[in-house]
């Protein structure tokens, strides 16, 4: 029965082909450092799921953001767990992204024909940092507030365009409800959608080109 249902679906969807090209593809003999990309992908999915769950209760309003986070932490069943995973997952993801990049760099895996994989990877690094930066403000506590004050001020030190960039990031002169709302929008819509598109290209290229082997002496 199961086999017949599978066969019916497979003829229409090509499931076996998808499986064999993505998961059954040939890989060179590599080491554990080559699992960092998958680890990052896993964390990204985890962040997406826990993040969606957090939006069930979180409100991006200066008067309610802190209270709603408190509510998640202290009153909702398993709220502490969901937010905890999101919080620590974010930190861990930045770590795995960096290690993944270092591995790619030191094994020279960014070379022909994988330059575009590397480039999308660089943008993925930036988007990941952007996720961390925008997410940091959302609890709207003292640390979040001042960290964002400092972070946006740093953007303001760029020659010529700095002050304008700072104002755009903040949605005006200082931190306000506008800052919170636009950071929220960036955190749950703009950056994740960008991330999704880039991950799509990144993974397509990994499957299409295969992964590189560990360089041998003299290469």
């Amino acid at each position, binding site marked *: 029965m199961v086999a017949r249902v599978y066969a019916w679906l497979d003829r229409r969807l090509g499931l076996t082909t998808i499986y064999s090209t993505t998961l059954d593809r040939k890989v060179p003999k590599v080491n554990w450092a080559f699992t960092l990309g998958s680890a990052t992908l896993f964390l990204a999915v985890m962040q997406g799921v826990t993040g969606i769950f957090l939006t069930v*209760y979180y409100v991006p309003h200066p008067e309610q953001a802190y209270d709603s986070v408190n509510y998640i932490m202290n*009153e909702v069943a*398993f709220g502490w767990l969901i937010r905890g995973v999101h919080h620590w997952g974010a930190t861990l993801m930045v770590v795995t992204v960096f290690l993944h990049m270092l591995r790619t760099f030191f094994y020279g895996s960014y070379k022909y024909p994988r330059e575009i994989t590397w480039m999308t990877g660089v943008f993925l690094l930036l988007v990941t940092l952007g996720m961390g930066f925008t997410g940091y403000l959302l609890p709207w506590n003292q640390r979040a507030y001042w960290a964002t004050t400092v972070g946006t001020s740093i953007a303001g030190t760029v020659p010529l365009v700095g002050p304008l960039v700072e104002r755009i990031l903040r949605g005006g002169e200082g931190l306000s409800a506008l800052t919170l709302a636009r950071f929220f929008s960036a955190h749950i819509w703009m950056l994740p959608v960008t991330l999704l598109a880039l991950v799509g290209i990144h993974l397509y290229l990994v499957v299409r080109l295969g992964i590189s082997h560990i360089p041998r002496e003299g290469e």
Partner: protein
Amino acid sequence: MAGAEETGGLSRRKFVTGMLAVLGGTITAVIGLPAVGYLVAPALKRSPTDVWVPLGPVESIPIDQPTLFTFSRAERIGWETTATSYGMYVLRSPDERYRVLSNVCTHLACRVVWKDDPQDYTCPCHDGHFAKDGHVLSGPPPRPLQAVEHKVEEGILYVHLVEA
């Protein structure tokens, strides 16, 4: 390699598949149950109410004319205080008897309004009509308007607000 199958033992492939199923099931439960709990938690929280609410002195209530009394109660829901409003129609008969009807339509909970012409309670949502004593005249409502327990003490009319 073929040894296990021939002797009726567990093949390595079967063992790994079984372990993966057990592990997968455990992980799904460990992640799934908290996720469901997280989503439904506020819905399971109940705030039982059992209070007598004073509506006002009886002498000010017109005789034989359904009169709407409203009041609201504040409650902390989530991280915010939310006010819930209630409406009750009071009918005072000439012999000093009272009939208190909730203004919540028994169809799908819209609020009914007393109309002097044609002397009935009209529900604006699906055109339900109730008579002065609350029974259904026409439209989709399945039950008469809910009668509310009440009492008069020292000239003040009280209603009994009960919520499970």
